[in-house]
């Protein structure tokens, strides 16, 4: 390739890269605006939880938090406003960061954490899936720290605004322009309908799984935030359908011992575990089961608050 050819090749490449940067920035600006105006669906809820939500009791955890706890009924029972910050398929990495972010604005009195080893303790090949709701908030220092902890390469990848909204931009746009009145940002809970008609199986959770050091660190950190801010923390394990055992991971057990944090273990609660009409699948209560469970938890939390 002659010197002339080299110049042409690299100048064309440069023009292409410049155009790409312009397109990327424009996309970022548009999406930033759309996201900030989204007040429905997952993304509206994420904005609401991160920037607006005010309450005394915070319910955190995975799908078992958002589907099992009726924040409205719990508010009535405790006489305090409850917010359900649980998220499908998410765990301690998102919850810790959410709590940190919320704690900058307000200090809740109680945090009810629905603990599930799969998302809050066990090691996984890749924790990137927990970045879904964090990438767009990466400018906030507490969120940035978590993003870098999960994947150090994100520092570079997130220079691209298109990457920042990768795979989620359609959801954000559709939720921004949705006219569905049921897609509230302030979801008290998301009850599941239906009844489980599968078999009564033996389930063993939390026994042999190896711990993810990052999740352990974030769990300890969550406990520390609660201790530092005088927040009453309660860990709950809601019922599973089937006959099985739940072994509290040693890291959680030692944390709870150290700071006298209660664990309400309802994994094998006889009120639930043999009644399939209270479940939609082995790991999720349906609306009826969740309502009953919420009343039970409300009483237990009241007991803690009385002490």
């Amino acid at each position, binding site marked *: *390739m002659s010197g002339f*050819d*080299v110049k*042409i*090749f690299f100048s*064309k490449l440069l*023009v*292409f890269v410049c*155009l*790409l940067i312009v*397109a*990327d920035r424009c*996309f970022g600006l548009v999406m930033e605006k759309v996201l900030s105006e989204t007040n429905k669906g997952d993304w509206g809820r994420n904005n609401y939880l991160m920037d607006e939500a005010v309450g005394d009791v915070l319910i955190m955890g995975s799908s078992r938090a958002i589907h099992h706890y009726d924040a409205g009924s719990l508010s009535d029972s405790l006489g305090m406003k409850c917010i359900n910050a649980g998220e499908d398929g998410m765990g301690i990495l998102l919850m810790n960061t959410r709590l940190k972010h919320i704690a900058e604005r307000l200090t809740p009195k109680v945090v009810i954490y629905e603990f599930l080893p799969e998302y809050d303790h066990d090691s996984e090949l*890749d924790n*990137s899936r927990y970045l879904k709701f964090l990438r767009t908030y990466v400018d906030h220092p507490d969120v940035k720290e978590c993003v870098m902890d999960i994947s150090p*390469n994100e520092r*570079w*990848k997130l220079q*691209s605004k*298109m*990457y920042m*909204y*990768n*795979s*989620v*931009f*359609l*959801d954000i746009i*559709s939720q921004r322009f949705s006219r569905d009145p049921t897609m509230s940002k302030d979801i008290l809970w998301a009850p599941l309908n239906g009844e489980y008609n599968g078999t009564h199986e033996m389930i063993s959770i939390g026994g042999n799984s190896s711990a993810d050091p990052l999740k352990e660190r974030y769990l300890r950190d969550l406990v520390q935030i609660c201790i530092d801010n005088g927040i009453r923390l309660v860990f709950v394990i809601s019922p599973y359908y089937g006959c099985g055992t739940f072994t509290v991971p040693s890291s959680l057990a030692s944390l709870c011992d150290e700071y006298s944090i209660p664990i309400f273990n309802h994994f094998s609660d006889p009120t639930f575990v043999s009644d399939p009409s209270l479940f939609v699948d082995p790991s999720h209560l349906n609306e009826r089961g969740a309502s009953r469970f919420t009343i039970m938890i409300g009483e237990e939390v009241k007991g803690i608050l009385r002490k």
Partner: protein
Amino acid sequence: MTFNSFEFLWLFPILWGLYWVIQVIILRKYSRSIIGNYLLLIISYGLYLRWRPEYALILLWVTATSFIFARVLVLFRDQKQKSFFIIGICLILLPLLFFKYWTFLGSGIKSLVNLVAGIQLSPDIPGLNYALPIGLSFYTFQALAYLSDVYHRRIEPEKNWWDYMLFIAFFPQILSGPISRAGDLLPQIKADRIPDRSQFTRGLRFLLWGMFMKVVLADRAGIYVNTVLNNYSQYTAPSLVLGTFLYAFQIYGDFAGYSYMAVGVGDLMGFKLINNFQRPYLSQSVSEFWRRWHISLSTWLRDYVYIPLGGSHCSRLRNYHNIIITFLVSGIWHGANWTFIVWGVFHGVFQVIEKALGIQKMNSSGPLKAIRILVTFCIITILWLFFRMPTISDACAVIKACFVGWENGVSSMTKSMGVFIKLALVVVAIKDLLEESHLQWVEKLWKMAPVRMTLYLIIVCLILTCGVFDSSQFIYVGF
């Protein structure tokens, strides 16, 4: 380091720049190819060692045995030469047999002994098929072809060990091919490589398109395919049919994506590698499909299995037998499992049927062409189930379940996932159809630089916004 990883994104431009800068600018007084080859060899082995260092010894074994036996072959003639050729073939195949087929063969022998003599052998004969060195099937076939070419005097044995090492370990193709021939690649290794703008542009274009096919089409479709086919008993017909249909595109996007990227990286390094794919789903027959899918393997099987068996220059029945055997080998090459064997044999059977009907090379047009393409696609897609599922009974169960529960809709498909998959399918379909049709106005349009630039920009934007960036491994790397 896979082509779809973040590591590749930053490391490759550095290696590429270093390669050309050292060759062209710093060492312009010396023979460029020699220095470039050493550099490429260091890069190739360096990248392979990063995976599992001990497996580089397997690579070295295959390289050394094929190199030495090729040199030995020319020293002898007649019977002795044949003996050395067979010993060489066995030694080259040894790691492949041990790592990939040992357990399968062991369990086969066990069952046979049990069946014939009624003796229960236990425990299982331990094998290492759980720790298959990556690219083993590909570089073993490349070495076998080289030895066979030397034996049949199609090429002279290579005298330069370092060049030969590079031929086997060349990093763009070592993981999943294309399976290059010594006659194609070795002369390129020996020649002076001069940076060529059009080749670089072609390379970037292949790289870009390969990336699109992998991260936008294959990995996106893979999310749905894995959800449905891994738990097929929980899904009804519409979801299973969609999952099966999407698997056909997942494997196309995955393997063609890898191959395009390999060709692209080869171009950027100054090499021309064989293009493994020619719009395979536009084939009018299963026979044509194999002229368009994994071309380097198909031609390998044709030259080193089908033709030595007698090819088509024999009786009709013998020819059919040769086709079946060739595709049986193809199935076995893909994996040590009865599913691959059934998949391969079925492909052979369909080609025999086409040959018997005389339609294997018949080109139709108009509606008949469309019908033939559709029928071929359906056959290929159903056969992919044997390729995808862990056992034959699982594959049959999925096929059976595809007829039950049509009253239900498609499940586990979110709105956005559906849009992303449709978008990827439409883009791939448009590209393949336009390339296939050779329309003049398309070619004229393609010659306009702003049009090309805009299309490249759209593809990059689609990759960034719709791609799946979990650096997932390519399916064929497992072979």
